[in-house]
Each structure stands twice: as C-alpha cells, then as structure tokens.
C-alpha cells in the first residue's frame, strides 16, 4: 500500500515504482506468483534467508483466509465482505471462496496501490448473482473506506471486515486499534472482524523485518500476539480465539499444526 492516487494537480496517473520492494509484490513472490519485479525477489530472498519460515507463514496466512471466509459465508451466514488490503490476486481470492458457498455474496476489495487495483478490477470478477467492486482508499481513513463501500454494501446488514496481513502497515502513532474500532463502529450488530498479522514471536522474524524495513520498502510493523488479540476487544471471539494461523479451525486432515510467527482470529460484533 505504497503508491498514491493520481495527483489532482497534473492528472497524471501514479507511477508504478519497480525500484523499491513493494509488500504486495513481495508477498506474491513468496506465494509462488509471477507478478513481481527483480527488487521484490531480491528483498523477498533476503527476508527468507534470515527467516526461512516466511514462505510457510505466507501460505498459512492465505489458508486462514480460505477457512475464515468459508466459515463466515457458511456457518455465520455472512453475505457481505469488506476486504481491506486486497493484495495481488492469487488462487482462491475472497470473492471466489465466498461465492462458492453463496453465489450472491457481495465483496468490496479495498487497496491503495494502483497495480493491485488494476489486477483486482481485471481478474477478480464476480459471479452473475453477486457483486465485486474495488475501492481505492487508504486504511488510515476508515470512514472514507466505509463511505465508498456503501455503494455496494448495505451497512444495515452484517458485514465481514477482513484485515489480513495489513495492520502492520499502520504505525503505532497512527493508532491501529482505533482504526479497527472505527471500521467496526460503522458495522451493524452481527458483523464480523477477521484479522491476521505477522507477530514478533521469534528473533528471526524480527530481524528479517528490520532488514525489510531498511530496504526502502514501506515499513511493516510486527506486533505481539497480545496486541493482535486486542484488536478483538469488545467482540465475541469465535472459537478457538486468537491463535497462530495454523491453529484456527484447521481442516480435519491438516495434521499437526506447524509453528508460524503469525496470529489470527475471527470475532463477532455483539
């Protein structure tokens, strides 16, 4: 989420900067995608060298997305999703998983990166029964996100707010908990929050992020499991609560959970 909107002064479209690593493209690289540039691969490799678990963490985080959306669209009966920090499309994106359960699901993807947005618009296309739309907005402006999503989502009915691997983009000074709170304030009772993020739970992950942040990329802030859990304050946590990516409702045939430096959870607004 680095690059900005077209400058109103010049009307020029934003430039895609291939000279510094970009989180969405580095993630794409870790996940085995092809939408990344040399600088992303270099930084991605550097992180992986210090913290080999990053690739598994990235995959487990995507797998959590899959299980969370299946739960939300299935058991929880949610039909509206606000997915903030879309990232570059991969296999099994939010709308595909949700619409497989219920084709009428409506999804709004939010990102502020121009490359992510063009890919989302071109590739994340809805079932005829449902809708997908794309909003260019910044996580730092939650009210703006809600205002612009209101064209697609009915905020008098429950919405699942998805914040996966994104909160680390918000520095402490910008009060990440308050941002999550303001988003949920706009949602009616019965809405859900699904959130996941990397945690500072090993020396390797901390060191790899320190170097990532020094690469010129937009810094990413790792937090503690307690801080991740605090995002859910005031919500009813869906069992098993806030746990590592691999421990949240694993598929029955998943085997023993791998250890990953990342926590996630799903909570319901009472």
């Amino acid at each position, binding site marked *: 989420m680095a690059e900005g909107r077209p400058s109103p002064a010049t009307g020029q479209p*934003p430039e*895609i900067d291939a000279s510094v690593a970009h989180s969405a493209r580095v993630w794409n690289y870790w996940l085995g995608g092809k939408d990344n540039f040399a600088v992303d691969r270099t930084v991605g490799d550097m992180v992986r060298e210090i913290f080999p678990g990053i690739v598994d963490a990235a995959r487990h985080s995507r797998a959590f997305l899959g299980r969370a959306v299946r739960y939300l669209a299935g058991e929880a009966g949610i039909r509206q999703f606000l997915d903030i920090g879309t990232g570059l499309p991969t296999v099994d994106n939010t709308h595909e998983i949700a619409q497989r359960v219920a084709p009428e699901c409506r999804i709004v993807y939010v990102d502020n990166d121009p490359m992510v947005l063009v890919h989302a*618009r071109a*590739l994340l296309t809805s079932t005829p029964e449902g809708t997908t739309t794309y909003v260019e907005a910044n996580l730092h402006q939650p009210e703006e996100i809600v205002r612009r999503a209101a064209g697609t989502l009915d905020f008098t009915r429950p919405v699942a707010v998805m914040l996966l691997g994104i909160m680390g983009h918000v520095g402490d000074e910008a009060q990440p908990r308050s941002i999550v709170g303001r988003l949920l304030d706009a949602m009616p009772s019965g809405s859900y929050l699904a959130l996941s993020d990397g945690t500072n739970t090993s020396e390797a992950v901390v060191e790899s992020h320190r170097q990532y942040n020094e690469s010129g990329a937009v810094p990413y802030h790792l937090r503690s499991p307690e801080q991740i859990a605090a995002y859910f304050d005031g919500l009813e946590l869906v069992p098993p609560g806030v746990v590592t990516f691999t421990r949240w409702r694993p598929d029955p045939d998943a085997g023993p959970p791998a250890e990953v430096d990342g926590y996630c959870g799903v909570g319901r607004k009472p």
Partner: protein
Amino acid sequence: MTAAQLDGDSAGGPTVRRMLLGAQLRRLREARGVGREEAGWEIRASESKISRMELGRVSFKERDVADLLTLYGVVDDAQRDELLSLARRANTAGWWHTYGDLLPSWFQSYLGLEAAAAVIRTYEVQFVPGLLQTADYARAVIRLGHGAATAAEIDRRVELRMARQQQLFGRPDGPRLWAVVDEAAIRRPIGGLAVMRAQVAQLIEAAARPRVQLQVVPFRAGGHAGSGGAFTILRFRDPDLPDVVYIEQLTSALYLDRREDLDQYALAMEQLSVQAEPPSRTPQLLAGVLQELDAALAG
C-alpha cells in the same frame, strides 16, 4: 503434480506439453544434481540441446526421455509412464495443423502458447486485438498485410482467426483476455466506416463477457509506457512455467522469457493498465465511438 495437471490444458496442444515436460525434466535433473553437460552426454546430445529441451523448444524422442529419467533416478513405473506419455503427446499436432501452409512456424508456436494460456494480456496500438476482431475487420487487417494473396487464401486466414477465437472463448476453461488498447485502435476505421461500426458494436458485447477485460488508453493520456508498440504477455497456470512475452514483427516474432526482459515488459504492461481508463469506463467510451460512426455513416 497429477496426471491431469501434466496433461496441461488439453486444448493447449503440443507446445505447452513440451514446456511442461521440459520443466519436469529440469526439476528432476536439478534434484539429482546432474549437470546439463552430463545429461547431454547420456543422450548423445549437446548441453544446449538439453537447455532447449528443458525450455520446451524442441520435440522429444521418447527414448531420450527414457534415458534421462533413468539418469535422474526416476525408476517408479507410474511416474515414468506419465512422463513418457506426455512426451508422446507432446509430438502430436495442434488444432491449427490444417492451416499449416499459411502459418510460419513462429506463429504456430504462438498458437500453441496462446491456447495453453490462463491469462492473455495484450497491448495494441493500431488495431483491435486479433482475438476480438470481427471477420470483416480481420479481413481488412489481413489484406493490409497480405496484399498479394488470393481471395481464397485471405478467406482461410480470416477463418483461422475466427477459429482461434472459438478455441479460446468457446470452452469453459478458456483463458482470460485482458486487453489494453490505444484509443487509436478503436477509432481508426479499418475496412471503412460500416466495418468499423460492426467491430465497435462487437467490442461492446465482448467487453461485457466475464472473461474479457478491455481498457482504453485515451489520447489525452499523452505519452505513455507503450510507446514501443504492441506486445502480448502470456501467463500459464503451471507455476513452473514463466510468462512469455510475444512481439510480432513483419516477418517473424520475438519470444522473451528471460526474467529481465519479462520484468521490463511486465512493468510497461502494468503502467499501461494503470494509465488506461478502468474496464468499467470502456462501454461508455465505445458507445461514444459508435455514435460518432453512426453520425458519419448518416452524413
């Protein structure tokens, strides 16, 4: 990888099967720590032949594949059979073989890649992309390039282009087409106003299809990232197959799959997609062009 995946996309034809088999052989060779030279020696071929095989650029002899598998320690019969059967099928002809007399080999290779692609991203400056052309528009474009051809030959070339469209869009698992075109391409009345009108009307329909995304780079965007001319990037489902950049020239074509080249063209394509109007604006833009054509036709 399962047999179904190895089969690639059955519509993909020989080109992609060769690429898949080549990618498998490279993986097996590297896993065994065997050098290209040693592998070449095993099948009485050069190191560069192994390179070309692994890139899927040449056809495979079943015996060579069998010898390589032995060298790479693949002894499991099921796995050997799967790869050997892929080698056999990699030598069968694609659907376009009946047009072989019209097609230089570089274009046959392209058809193979195109048929196997999961996403086709194309940038066009002067023409409506071939995969979205009407028969009449295609005929006008083909006449421009083959002035000396007989009417019968031109008809068959048009037929081939329509068959390509049918191959790609007529099957449920067909690729996505993500086209970015310069405004010139939707305004230049190739084939005359009436032909262009029908073409623009068809583009409006095509752009509404879920697997087609069409973006227009408006004139007012000024200079842009695509000043180098038209190009296409093919993306395959298999994570091991790199994208291929295809640039058609007057008498041949350029395929680029070196990472550095891909990065350059991918960046240009991303930049063009960002500069272009979003797909949601396309119907309105095309409706405007249609109106102007109607006015010109009425006048």
